[in-house]
């Protein structure tokens, strides 16, 4: 007897738009060449190797830090947790650029300190950067599963006759294993999608070769490579969906008091990781700023970034609203929402490739900001949908019914109840999209109109031209933007933690 919710047709249009890039790539890429050439296999090997090494590094750094932050009483615990997740908010190209410039003969470390260091580049360099910037995924998921574990379980296992090590092995590890796997897969996803790090370190992964093909006017070959990369991404996403995360009502969290281990044994490695991931870029960009000043930086670039990001944030939130409301309205709506999540899995370079073709075919979009903003909207739509939906879902269904029974029309109930109560989610979603767009590189690189530079593309130009000193201002601004993103993200997380548990009756 229920009519289809009003949000459905709008959400369906958005979902169709989200399918557009994949459709374009299929049209362009299928038949553009043999699916499995020796060259493609070479790229696949390089990509897989980089992903494997990065994930291994992320796990090696992330798991011990997770155990330290979840189970050991550390001084300034909250600070360490935020600081240790901070690299996640930084785009890895900042790190790649800084490490690339700092190490090796003629690098900044040699210039400043007179120490000769081995260069950081190639496969190992890229893996180091990816590990440094994706370990927080592993840290967060592992920590969550450790925190979700009730210490009562360990106690129960011990009263049933297991020794403490055996209890940890048989009760704790199976639960935490899923957390580690989930984080490792997120790290793999990030590595597969990342363009700038392999490009700066000169590793021939899919993303780098797609860019090379695009520059050589091989759009359909780029599309084919994009499809192959998407297949890899799909495999990782599938594996991720299989890693179930059980959740139980958290009881007393597991706490290990390691008297024997001084806290410095934990804090020193943590500080080292932070120094490499955050301290080094800040120091390198700071040194350049001191040496070369702000000359050579055109403030219009920062303005470009800010207003495209603002437009994209506004547009994304507007198209996210019907999707988020549809997702809460019924099963079909949830299906539509899933489709819009495609953007999450589509690497920026792939999104760029698909929309470049759209620009070639639709003259009024060619070389326009509108096309670039469309790319941002499709890519970051899931962020906005997620933020709006999570507040919307915590909204009691009966509130709208209550407003209606008090005489409010559906429009009035939306304006006075639904909208004010989801406004925080809408603003948080817009902020996240804004900050992501400020830092986006690959799609911007492919789609920016001639003469348009953003902070990220400016950094790329500086890298390509070799005038590293010019990177100081855009680099530091991007770090600042990343810091703001971190604030928004942690604020959102805290709100979710503090949300009162509602007793749901129906």
């Amino acid at each position, binding site marked *: 007897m229920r009519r289809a919710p009003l949000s459905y047709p709008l959400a369906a249009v958005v979902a169709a738009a989200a399918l557009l890039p994949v459709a374009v790539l299929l049209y362009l890429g299928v038949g553009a060449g043999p699916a499995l050439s020796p060259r493609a296999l070479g790229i696949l090997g390089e990509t897989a190797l980089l992903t494997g090494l990065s994930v291994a590094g992320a796990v090696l750094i992330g798991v011990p830090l997770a155990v330290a932050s979840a189970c050991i009483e550390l001084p300034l615990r909250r600070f360490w947790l935020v600081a240790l997740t901070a690299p996640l908010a930084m785009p890895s190209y900042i790190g790649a650029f800084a490490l690339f410039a700092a190490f090796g003969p003629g690098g900044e470390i040699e210039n400043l300190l007179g120490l000769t260091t081995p260069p950081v580049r190639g496969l190992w360099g890229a893996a180091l950067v990816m590990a440094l910037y994706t370990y927080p995924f592993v840290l967060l998921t592992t920590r969550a599963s450790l925190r979700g574990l009730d210490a009562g379980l360990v106690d129960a296992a011990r009263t049933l006759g297991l020794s403490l090590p055996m209890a940890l092995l048989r009760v704790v590890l199976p639960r935490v294993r899923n957390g580690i796997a989930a984080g490792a897969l997120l790290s793999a996803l990030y590595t597969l999608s990342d363009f700038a790090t392999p490009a700066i370190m000169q590793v021939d992964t899919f993303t780098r070769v797609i860019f090379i093909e695009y520059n050589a006017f091989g759009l359909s070959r780029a599309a084919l490579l994009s499809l192959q990369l998407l297949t890899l991404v799909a495999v990782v996403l599938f594996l991720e969906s299989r890693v179930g995360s059980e959740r139980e009502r958290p009881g007393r969290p597991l706490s290990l008091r390691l008297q024997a281990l001084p806290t410095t044994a934990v804090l020193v490695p943590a500080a080292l990781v932070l120094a490499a991931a955050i301290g080094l870029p800040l120091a390198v960009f700071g040194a350049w700023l001191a040496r070369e000043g702000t000359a050579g930086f055109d403030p219009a670039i920062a303005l470009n970034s800010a207003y495209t990001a603002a437009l994209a944030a506004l547009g994304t939130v507007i198209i996210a609203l019907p999707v988020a409301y549809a997702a809460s309205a019924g099963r079909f709506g949830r299906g539509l929402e899933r489709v819009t999540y495609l953007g999450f899995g589509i690497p920026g370079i792939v999104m760029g490739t698909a929309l470049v073709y759209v620009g070639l075919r639709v003259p009024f979009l060619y070389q326009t900001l509108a096309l670039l903003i469309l790319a941002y909207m499709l890519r970051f739509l899931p962020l906005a949908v997620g933020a709006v939906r999570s507040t919307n879902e915590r909204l009691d269904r009966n509130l709208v019914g209550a407003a209606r*029974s008090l*005489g409010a029309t559906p429009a009035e109930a939306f304006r006075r109840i639904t909208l004010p*109560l989801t406004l925080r989610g809408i603003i948080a979603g817009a902020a996240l999209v804004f900050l992501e767009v400020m830092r986006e590189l690959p799609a911007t690189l492919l789609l920016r109109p001639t003469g348009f530079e953003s902070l990220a593309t400016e950094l790329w130009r500086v890298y390509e031209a070799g005038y590293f000193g010019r990177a100081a201002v855009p680099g530091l601004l991007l770090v600042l933007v990343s810091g703001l993103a971190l604030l928004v993200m942690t604020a959102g997380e805290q709100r979710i933690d503090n949300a009162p548990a509602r007793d749901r009756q129906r």
Partner: protein
Amino acid sequence: MLAVRDLCVRYGRTTVLDDVSFELDDGEILTLVGPTGCGKTTTLRVVAGLERPGSGALEIDGVHIDRDRFVPPEKRRTGLVFQDFALFPHLCVAENIGFRVRDRARVTHWMRVLGIEPLADAYPDTLSGGQKQRVALARSLAHEPSLILLDEPLSNLDAALKAELRWEIRAALKEAGVGALWVTHDQDEALSIGDRVGIMRAGRLEQLGPPEQCFSAPASRFVAQFLGEAVFLPGERRGDELRTLLGAGTARAGDSGDGPVDVLLRPDDVTLAADGDTNAAVEWSRYEGGTRLYAARLDDGPLLKVRTNHETHLAPGERVSARITAGHPLAAFPRESA
């Protein structure tokens, strides 16, 4: 005034409401009671307009509503009081109560009646369950509904609060003089609050009448058992006289014809004595404070529940003599050929 006529609702193949009809007068409180899934909440939601009738019709204040002539909830002026209160979390108490009310005096009036004036500026998440329910009720009443619908209004509150708030709500409803449809699964609540009680089962209204009538002259064995402890004792009916193993009693007129019957016995219709011709053995006893509830197994018969005053002391296993001592006519149902 509300009239519900031959109301049916189906979800797919399951029938949720089956031919439900009743009327509700202004100022009257009708409680709908029944086990989970009996359709009582659906009835409420159809009246509120949150659900569409499958067939049948409603009339609210003379406005006819059916499947084809649907009136949206905001046009019905039915005040709905939710089980989980549904207070708007971003509005304070006074703003909640005055959601669409122009006349501030009405808001203050109902806050005063329900004793929540000091909370006017508080936000819902700072209120206790009982306060939330008072706010929810005040909100409904301040919007001057033509009738009030209450969906298990007390079920999220603890027991001590329930008893107290029950009477407060009843008094406020009576003061407002509006009709109220009060859905509950608690038979004590239904019997003590309702001017009339409707007992629902599997989408049907099994009985509708004053509480005393439903309790003492239940229309079916289900109603008898749902409203309180009930034992069915085999017996014979001749005219108005009932003969059973536990002695004789008077039958209610019209319940059944002459012949074999099952007599409905409530725990206070029977007394136990430790002397005389014993015909039962005590199985267990439960101390209830002012009274004591005994279970006694009749020789080759059913388990009787008997409530005595607390001074009676009988040990489990003790032989007793059970006798019908009810001073009122008993309900009897034609014997089921089991």
